[in-house]
C-alpha cells in the first residue's frame, strides 16, 4: 500500500502536493504558523532595541546599587556579579539564552530575580486590564447597538458626543478628574491603593478609577468602530435585506444578524491593540500607586535597571504577538470562508 503510494507520487507530482496540502492543510494552521514565524523577528527586534537604548543611558549600574561611597574594587566585583564585565553582544546573547530558559535575570535595583518581581506585580496589571476590557467592551457594544439602531437619532448623536470626549481626553487628565470627584469629594473610591486588598469587593473598589481612566478612551474607540460597522452592515449587506424581507423583527436583525457579524471586526481590533495598552498602564498605575508592572516599568527606567525593563518589555511584546495571533485565529474560527480555505475576493 505504502509502496503503491510512493510510486503514485513519483509518477504524479501533483498528488504529492495534494497530500502535503491535506496534512499541513488547514489554512487556519498555515496562518498561525506564518504568524508565529513573523513573531520571532519582531520579538528579537524589540528586545534588541531595548537593550541598545538602555545601554546608551550613561551611568554605571554597579555605582547606582552601591552608592557614592563604593570603592573601585567593590564596583568591579558587582560588575562581575551582574555580568557587566562582558562586552555588549555577549550580554545580549546571555540574556537571550536566559530568556529561552525562562530566566529573565537579576534586577539591578533589589538584586531579586526579575521572574519573582514580575510574578509579584503582573497579577495587579492583569486584573486591571481584564476589568478595563470587560467593562469598556461591554458598554461599547451596548452603546454601539443603541446608536446604530437609528443612525443620526438622539441616541446616536449622544453617543457620538460622548465618544468624541473619550477620544480627546488624555488618560492622566481623566484619572486626576476622577480622583478629585470620586475620591476627594464623594469618597466612594480610594485615590491610592497599595495593594488589591483581601476580598474581591475591595479589589474592585481599588481598580475602578484606574480602569475607568484607561477604559473610557477604549470605550470611545470600540463603540465608534462597532457602530460604524453595524450601520454599514445594515445598509449594504444582502443577508440583512433577506432577514428583513422574511419578517424578522428589527431588534433581532440588529442584534443577532448585524451586530454578530460586526463583532468580529471589533474583537480583532481589541486583540491587535492589547500590547499597546502598556503605555496607558505605565502612566495610570503610578497615579493610583497601584503596584503593577506599569508602575514598575517607570521606576525601573528611572534607575536604569536594564534587566527589569527588559523583562517588562518582553512581557508586553509577547502580549502583542499573542494578540496578533489571537486576531488571526479569531478570523479563522469565526469566518467560515477562511476556515474552509475558500478564497475570497
Amino acid at each position, binding site marked *: 500500500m505504502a509502496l503503491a503510494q510512493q510510486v503514485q507520487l513519483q509518477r504524479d507530482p501533483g498528488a504529492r502536493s495534494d497530500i502535503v496540502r491535506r496534512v499541513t492543510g488547514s489554512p487556519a494552521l498555515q496562518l498561525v504558523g506564518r504568524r508565529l514565524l*513573523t513573531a520571532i*523577528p*519582531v520579538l528579537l*527586534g*524589540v528586545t534588541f*532595541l*531595548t537593550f541598545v*537604548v*538602555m545601554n*546608551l*543611558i*550613561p*551611568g554605571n549600574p554597579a555605582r547606582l546599587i552601591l552608592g557614592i561611597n563604593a570603592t573601585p574594587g567593590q564596583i568591579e566585583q558587582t560588575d562581575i556579579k551582574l555580568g557587566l564585565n562582558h562586552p555588549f553582544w555577549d550580554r545580549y546573547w546571555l540574556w537571550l539564552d536566559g530568556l529561552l530558559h525562562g530566566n529573565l535575570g537579576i534586577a539591578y535595583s533589589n538584586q531579586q530575580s526579575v521572574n519573582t518581581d514580575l510574578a509579584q506585580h503582573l497579577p495587579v496589571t492583569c486584573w486591571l486590564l481584564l476589568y478595563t476590557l470587560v467593562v469598556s467592551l461591554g458598554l461599547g457594544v451596548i452603546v454601539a447597538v443603541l446608536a446604530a439602531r437609528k443612525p443620526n437619532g438622539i441616541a446616536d448623536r449622544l453617543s457620538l458626543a460622548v465618544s*468624541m*470626549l473619550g*477620544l*480627546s*481626553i*488624555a*488618560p*492622566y*487628565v481623566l484619572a*486626576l*478628574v476622577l*480622583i*478629585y470627584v470620586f475620591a*476627594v469629594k464623594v469618597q466612594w473610591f480610594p485615590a491610592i491603593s497599595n495593594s488589591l486588598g483581601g476580598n474581591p469587593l475591595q479589589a474592585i473598589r481599588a481598580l475602578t478609577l484606574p480602569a475607568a481612566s484607561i477604559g473610557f478612551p477604549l470605550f470611545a474607540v470600540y463603540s465608534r468602530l462597532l457602530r460604524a460597522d453595524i450601520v454599514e452592515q445594515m*445598509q*449594504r*449587506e*444582502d443577508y*440583512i*435585506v433577506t432577514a428583513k424581507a422574511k419578517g424578522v423583527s428589527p431588534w433581532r436583525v440588529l442584534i443577532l444578524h448585524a451586530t454578530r457579524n460586526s463583532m468580529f471586526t471589533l474583537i480583532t481590533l481589541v486583540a491587535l491593540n492589547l*500590547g*499597546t495598552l*502598556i*503605555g496607558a498602564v*505605565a*502612566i495610570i498605575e*503610578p*497615579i493610583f500607586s497601584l503596584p503593577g508592572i506599569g508602575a514598575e*516599568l*517607570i521606576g525601573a*527606567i*528611572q534607575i*536604569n535597571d536594564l534587566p527589569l*525593563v527588559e523583562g517588562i*518589555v518582553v512581557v*508586553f*511584546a509577547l502580549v*502583542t*504577538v499573542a494578540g496578533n495571533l489571537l486576531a488571526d485565529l479569531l478570523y479563522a474560527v469565526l469566518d467560515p470562508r477562511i476556515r474552509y480555505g475558500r478564497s475570497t*475576493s
Partner: protein
Amino acid sequence: MAAQLPDLTTTLAPGAAPPLPSLVSARHLRNQRVGRALRLWVPAAILVALFFLCFIWPYVYTIPSGTVGSILAAQEPPFSPGHWLGTDPVGVDVFAMLVYGGQVAFEVGFAVTAIGLVIGGLIGLAAGYFGGWTDTILSRIIDVLIAFPALVLALAVAEVLQPSELHLIWALSVFSVPAFARVTRGSTLVVRQLPFIQAARLSGTRSWRIILKHVLPNVIPGIISFSLIGVGIVVILEGALDFLGLGIQQPKPSWGGMIARGQTVLTATPEYVLIPSIVLLIFVMALNLLGDALRERWGVR
C-alpha cells in the same frame, strides 16, 4: 492578479439604492449642508484661535513671564488684576504658562506628525506598492517599532541627550513614522489593485511615476485626515512625557508639566489641574473633529 469586472449583482442590491430626491425637503438639505460646513469650520476656527493665542498674542500684548514669578504674588485666584488666570504656588502666571506650553504643544505635535507623514508615508508607499521582499522587510521593521514602548526610548533620549524640545520631537517621531507607514501601506495596497494602476503599468509607466502621479493623490486625503488625529495623539503623548517628568523640564512651561505640578495640590486647588486640562482637551478635540470633518468631506473611511 487581473482586475475583476464589477459585480453587477451587488451594485444593484436594493439596500444600496440612494434615497429618492423627492422625499427629502429642500430645508432638510440646507440644514444638512449648514451642519456639514459647521462641522468643518468650527474646529478649524478653534485651532486658528489657539494658534493666534499661543504665537501671535505674546507679541501683540505683553504677557508676564512663563518661567519666573514673584513669590509675593503667589496663588492668586483666577481673574485677579494682571493675572487673568491667577498664579501658581510659586507666583508664575498661569495664563503665560498656558501660552508658552501651547507653543510647545503646537510645535511638537505638528513637527512630529510632519516627520511621520513624510518619512512614514514614503516607507508605506514603497512597502505597499512594491510588495514582495521590500514589503516583508519594511513591515517587520514597522512591527518592531510599533511594539517598542515609547516610554523607554523617551527616557533614554532624556538621559543621553539633554532633555529638550528638539530631542522630544526626535524621540516621538520614532513612533509617528511607523504609524504613518502602516496606514499608508494599507491604503496603497487598496489603490494598487485599481484598474487605472494596472493600465498605467501595462502602458509602461515607470514605477516612481506611477507612485507619485497615480497612487499618491489617491492615498493623500486619507493620510491628511489621519494626520490631524495623529497630532492630537502626539500632543497627548507629549503631555504624558512632561507629566512623568521625561519631557520638557521644570522651569520651561508645558501643559503636561502644569498638570503634574497641579496634581500635588489637587485636593486644595483643583484649578491648577483643571485649567491646562481643559485647554488640552479643547485642542485635541478640535483636531479630532477637524479630522473627522475632512474625512467625511473627502469620503475616506
